Each structure stands twice: as structure tokens, then as C-alpha cells.
């Protein structure tokens, strides 16, 4: 299923179902939000509509956007020919829409863009309002833009980015000028050895091909080592699970969405609604998150993960003292085969190695030509200009 709700067949923007559109069913791919229609639209949606963009509909997503590509949606698996397909990436790749708004939580839209060979920008944390995002990990998730090329991404980004009073973490800057014309000649890029080594051959070929293209544009590319990725992944798993556990608690069958028909008292409503309404991946994340926040575990898990996050962020940002760009795989493979969904939790966190650095540190990431470019916070223009230059060759 591509759309949870179709709104306008002539619409030019698809919106992932974990981003709210007023009066339109918004499920975030979960049974537990069955029938939930919000009273307001996400700020990014409102800004697009005010500029005359038309929303085509709510694109199917994996439950709360937690999975690899969308395979855990309650409203229908996306796999057809043995491959997992992502709804937003499909409608962008096929040209049905010009662009899609996707929440980059665990890197799902980045992976989707890489395997469908479209462009996706996860901007710097705090540049796009999170007002209207069905939240999981508030400290990291960002709405980003998926489109065919960097130019379209820049156009849509310039509409949705900018300060919003309704989001207390929103950066104060009122508007951003996403330029594609920054001079990239003489810029320095690096490849993180550990990430390249972990990817399969098809992905390695793509990264090395892109390296050649960058070099042809006058960008030097060197190899660096970054040993903190396993630590970053562990911290990521803890922090994402803890925040998600807390944010999904409000889906309790009391106020809206799905409610079990099997109850005698309030405890039954809670337990049975959530048992019946949530999928396995969400439940795994919730259990893991409850554990790392519990008494006696907080200090050794959550608190430590926050400290690791700080160290990883500082170390990662040090790379940008010497380099303007990081060139990296976005995925370990160039297509995802169906897998046993009982393994989703492990699968998601093992794939996080490619996406975790930008997510933990709040820095921007651009997926293009099946690879990923990273830059320091608020340096989207280097990413967009480099990708645009490569596209125009």
C-alpha cells in the first residue's frame, strides 16, 4: 500500500503518515492510531500549503517510522517481488509526486532514498519545526525532503525550514537560503574507513564511483578512521528506545485511536489495547526503553548513553575542522530482501551504523546516487551544491 489516505490525485507532495495533516487519518503505520484524525497540520505541511503546494496523500510508513524502510506498517507490507519498497521513495522515483516529506528518525528515508536512487536531505536538527510529527525520538528526529534531485530538495526545504514558536527547540533563524551554487572546487572530503569496510561490494562500488566524481570536480578525498561507531550505535539504541518508550505511552486506548474491546477495568484497557495495537518492533523498543530508564539502570544506561552521545558528537564534529564533507555509504546493501520481522529490532540497530552519526549529532545528511554525504551543522549548502554539481556533470 502506497498511501494510507489519498488526498489529491493531482497533488505534488506526498507526506509520510507520521506527519499530521488536519482532518486526514494519521496512523504513523500503527494499528494503535486506527481512526485518528488530528485537529491540526504539521507546521511543515501548513507552510507548503500556504505556498500553493498540494498534498497528494499520506504515504505509508513502517510503524512510527522505526524500521528499515517501512516493512512493519500495520496497513500492509510493502514488499512485492521479494524486495522491501518504501512508499514515499516509490512515489518520488516514479514521478507521481515532485517531493515527499519524511521524518528521519532511525534513518529510514535515507535508506529508502539510497535503494530507490532518489535524493533525500535530513537537515540540521532544529531547522524544520517538529510541530505535528508523531514523535519517537524528539532529541534527534527531523522532517526532511525527498525528491528526484538536489534542486527540488533545496526548493522544498526553503519553504519548510525556519523558526517556529510552537517548537521550543526550533532554531531562531527565520529563514534559510538553500543555495546550489556554492563553489566546491578545492573543498576537502573524507571517507570513514570503518563505514566503507562494513558495506557490501555493490555499495562500495557506488561510494568509490562517487569519490571519482567529486575528485573530478576538484574536491580532494582522503580516508580517515573513526573508531566510535559501535559506541555511537549503542548510545543510539538506548536513547532512541528510551524516548520512544515515553512518547508512545500516550497511546493507551483512553483518548483516541484503537481501544481493545476486551476489558473489565482500566488496567485491561492499557494492557490489551497496547498488546493488540502495537507491533513487535514497537514493543521491543518500548521494553528496551523501559529497562534503560528504570531505577538502577538509568545511570549505567541512559545517563551513560547521553555522555557517549556528547563524546561522539564532539569527535565527529572534529572531522569538520579538517574536512568539509564526509562521503559514506547510506546502507550496507543496495536493496533489502524480506526478512523475518522477529529480527527487526536487531536488524534496525545493526543498520544504524551508517545513519547514526548525523542523527546523534544533529548534523545534516544528504543521500544522493545511492551514497550519503555528511557535513557540519547548518552546512546544507555544501551538501546540496556538491550533489547538484555531480548531477549536472
Amino acid at each position, binding site marked *: 500500500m502506497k498511501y494510507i489516505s489519498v488526498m489529491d490525485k493531482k497533488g505534488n507532495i506526498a507526506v509520510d503518515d507520521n506527519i499530521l495533516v488536519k482532518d486526514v487519518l494519521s496512523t504513523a503505520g500503527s494499528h494503535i492510531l486506527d481512526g485518528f484524525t488530528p485537529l491540526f497540520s504539521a507546521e511543515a505541511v501548513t507552510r507548503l500549503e500556504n505556498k500553493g503546494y498540494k498534498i497528494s496523500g499520506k504515504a505509508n510508513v513502517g510503524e512510527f517510522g522505526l524500521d528499515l524502510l517501512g516493512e512493519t506498517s500495520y496497513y500492509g507490507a510493502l514488499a512485492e517481488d521479494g524486495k522491501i519498497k518504501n512508499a514515499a521513495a516509490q512515489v518520488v522515483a516514479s514521478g507521481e509526486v515532485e517531493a515527499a516529506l519524511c521524518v528521519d528518525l532511525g534513518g529510514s528515508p535515507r535508506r529508502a532514498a539510497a535503494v530507490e536512487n532518489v535524493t533525500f536531505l535530513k537537515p540540521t536538527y532544529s531547522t524544520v519545526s517538529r510541530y505535528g510529527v508523531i514523535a519517537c525520538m*524528539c532529541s534527534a528526529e527531523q522532517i526532511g525532503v525527498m525528491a528526484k534531485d538536489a534542486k527540488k530538495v533545496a526548493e522544498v526545504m526553503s519553504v519548510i525550514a525556519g523558526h517556529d514558536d510552537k517548537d*521550543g*527547540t526550533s532554531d531562531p533563524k527565520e529563514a534559510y537560503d538553500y543555495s546550489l551554487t556554492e563553489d566546491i572546487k578545492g573543498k576537502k572530503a573524507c571517507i570513514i574507513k570503518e563505514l566503507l569496510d562494513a558495506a557490501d561490494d555493490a555499495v562500495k562500488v557506488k561510494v568509490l564511483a562517487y569519490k571519482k566524481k567529486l575528485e573530478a570536480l576538484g574536491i580532494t578525498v582522503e580516508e580517515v578512521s573513526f573508531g566510535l561507531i559501535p559506541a555511537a550505535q549503542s548510545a543510539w539504541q538506548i536513547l532512541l528506545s528510551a524516548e520512544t518508550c515515553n512518547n508512545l505511552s500516550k497511546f493507551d486506548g483512553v483518548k483516541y485511536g484503537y481501544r481493545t474491546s476486551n476489558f473489565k477495568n482500566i488496567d485491561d484497557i492499557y494492557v490489551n489495547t497496547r498488546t493488540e495495537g502495537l507491533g513487535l518492533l514497537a514493543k521491543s523498543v518500548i521494553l528496551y526503553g523501559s529497562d534503560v*530508564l528504570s531505577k538502577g539502570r538509568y545511570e549505567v544506561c541512559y545517563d551513560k548513553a547521553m555522555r557517549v552521545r556528547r563524546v561522539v558528537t564532539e569527535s565527529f564534529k572534529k572531522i569538520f575542522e579538517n574536512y568539509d564533507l564526509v562521503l559514506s555509504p547510506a546502507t550496507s546493501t543496495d536493496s533489502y530482501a524480506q526478512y523475518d520481522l522477529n529480527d527487526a529490532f536487531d536488524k534496525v540497530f545493526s543498520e544504524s551504523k551508517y545513519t547514526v552519526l548525523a542523527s546523534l549529532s544533529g548534523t545534516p545528511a544528504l543521500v544522493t546516487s545511492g551514497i550519503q554525504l555528511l557535513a557540519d551543522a547548518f552546512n546544507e549548502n555544501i551538501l546540496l551544491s556538491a550533489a547538484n554539481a555531480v548531477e549536472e556533470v
Partner: protein
Amino acid sequence: MAYEIVIGLETHVELSTKSKLFCSCGGHSEANEPNDCVCPACCGMPGMLPVVNKQAIELAVKAGLMLNCKINQYTTFDKKSYYYPDLPAAYQTTQWFNPICVEGLVDVETSIGISKIGIKQIHVEEDAGKLVHTNDSSLVDYNRTSVPLIEIVTKPDFRSAEEVISYLKTLKSKLQFAGISECEEGAMRCDINISVRPEGSDILGVRTEIKNMSSLTSIEEAINKEAIRHIDALERRTEVLVQETRRWDDVKKRTFPMRNKETAADYRYFPDPNVMPVVIDDKWLQEIKDSMPKTIDEQVERYMALGLSQREAAAIVSEPILIELLDDMVSKDIDVKAAAGWILTDYLGILKKNNIQAKDIALDGEKLAWIIKTAQSGEITRNTGKTVLSAVILENADPKTYCEQNNLMVKTDLDLIKKVVVKAIEANPKAVEDYKAGKEKALLAIFGFAMRELRGAGSPDLIRQILLESLAE
């Protein structure tokens, strides 16, 4: 053996903000119907983000200043998770790691002198909603959800119920005085931590917590009953004390343990990533300090310097509304001493007699000023003034119109007064006789008759003068 009671208090107080803690909904006091004052944010809908209410921060800082606390200029908010239908987001935003105020001290006066009570911390948090149970279902009302509260946590410094009660009264008057909280009846909720130990010991005994107390009478009873239970357990081995949470049964007059299930929660606190740390810089802190009303002591000194006695000044300062009224009179060029007399004797007397709370009526300063000025100039008598004030308070009368309609302006018409005096003399032959025989006091009866004839509105000086002249003839 003699025992010492050791008590610490956690007191929840609702802040007098215009809107809720994280959204722009008005307070629940504006609500007429259940779920009148709610929005997607305070109903726990997905997609909403909290934006901190600056006024709540300022009021919490003021509370800290009133209680001599150190203000944490870097303060953060945390999430406390638990499931309950009155908590729509399934977490409460509170301050677990970096509370806004710490290390305060407050003087508490009791029959044995002044005790110093340490304040451990003050933190800001949101209130929960309300459940309404019917025969076959339970309903939720989110009007109160996310209304800002402060929780004031003391050190275990209380040694008697009397100290606790005095502290709560002091707290209430300080919070009301600085406009921090209305402290309405039942809106101050306390959790009481209590233990006992042999006098002279410095080891704390087994502690129990009595939850959710609001009436001062119940608090006093609960402390005394719980202390006796503890002492009995130690002295007479009636039971083994365990650290637990208890409730007060106001009918049976005893505490009882809460179900284990209600107390075993692990709240899984963690910093709220949606609420940026609040930084109260020196400039903002100074602005808050400058906006504080004068303290009670400063107010008393100010009125004494203006000419009030210590007793009068203290009485005025005890109620913010009286301060406002007196300052208003002074600003209208009324002598402070006279104005204080009218306020403390007449105004409060009328309220007391009719069982009215000062805050329940809005006395127009213009009206009171007219009454005082008109009485001072002799156009109405002091007694008439009191009657008029009563009409103003009870019927919201306009004093001037009221006097005219009821013929209360002092009569200075010589012919009229002469007529009345003649009538009074004729009607009181015995008193006239007594007076002439030298009994000065008899004059009062004749005077009183004349005044009654004029419905209390004759000029006393004129009546006396004409009466004396007539009797001398």
C-alpha cells in the same frame, strides 16, 4: 522515654498564571464545563510540543525569593512516566534533576518561639486532570491538566504539628502576598513525611508518608495520630513500623496504608528533550526581584513611618486587599490614620458582621473616599458614614445617591432644627426638669430624641447649641 517527632513537608501550590505550563490554554478556573480549557497539547495528542510558560518560571523564582532560596539560574525539565487516565500524555513534566530553587530558609513562629525551617528545593511541574466516577463508568476532565504547580520541599526540620501548621499559614500568606498563588481552599496539598526518635538521638526513625492532605485541621490531627502510632510501636511493640505511604481517614481519624500497587511505581525520570534548559540570566533575575512586592516587614515599617501604630500597620498588612485599599485612600489625600480607622473598624466590622470575605467583594475606592471625606467635612455624621458604607458593601449603593434618597445629609437648616428641638423639649418634660435641677446627663435624652427625629442626620453641633439656648430661656 521522651520522643521527638521529625517531620518534613512537600507542599503543592497552584501558580497564578494566565495560561497553562506548556500551552496557551487558560487556567481551569475559567472553565464552566469539563474539558472547556483544553487543547491538543494538554490532552496528550501526538504532534504537540511544549513551550514553557515564562510567567510560571517568574512566579517560581518569586516563591524562591520569598523563602530565601538560592535560585538555580540554569534549570531543566524532566519527564516522569506513569499510566493513569487523568494523565493524558502518560508522563508528567516536572523538575527532577535541576530544580529552579534550592536551599531556602523560613522563620516559623510558635508558642515556644521562632523555629527555622530549611527548604530543600522548589520545583515547577504540571498538574494532572480529574476523574469523575459515575455508577458504571469513569469520565476524565482535562481542564486542570498541565496547570502549573510548584512543589515546595522542606528539610525534616519540623518537631511538632504546631510548627507545621504555622509554616503552612506563613507559606500561604507569603505566596498570596507576592501574587504567586491564590492558595484557594484545598488548593495547597501536602505530603507529610513523619518519623519519631528518642529525644536527644540524632538517628532518624522509620519514616512514613501521609499523602495528599489539604485541611489544616486534618493535617494537625494526622500528625498527632501518626506520631502516637509510631511511639506506640516503639514503646509497646504494638506493630512493626515499615517505611510506607499512608492515607488519612478523616472519618475514622486514623492513617491507613495505601495499596502497594499505588506506591511501587518506577517513574523512569529522564530529561525532557523538548524543553530547552531555562537560563535565568542576571538581568532577568534582577527584573523579577524588582517586581517583587515589598515584604510584610517593609510594609509595616512604611505605614508606621506614615503615622500608623504598629498594631494598625500589622493589621493592614495582613491582607493584600487592605494594603491596596489604604494606599488608594492615601493617594486620594485622605489622612492615613483616619483611613486606617475606617478600614480596620468600619469596613472589616461590616464584613465580619455579614460573614463576607474581603476578596469576595470589590469595594470601589472612590466610594470609600467619598464617605470618609464627607464625614470628615461634617456633611454626614460618622454613624451615617458607617450606614452608608454598609449599603455600599452589601447593595453596591452609590453613597451620594443613597444619602440623598434616605435624607441622610446633615441638616443645617436652622428653622428645621429649632422645630425639632422644641418638639424634643415638649416630649421630654421629665428630662427637662432633671436638667434644670442640675443633672447634666439628662440633656442626652433630649438630644437623642431630636437626633432620632432627624434620622441621625442632624448636625450634632447645631442641635446641641440650639438645645442649650432653648433650655436657658
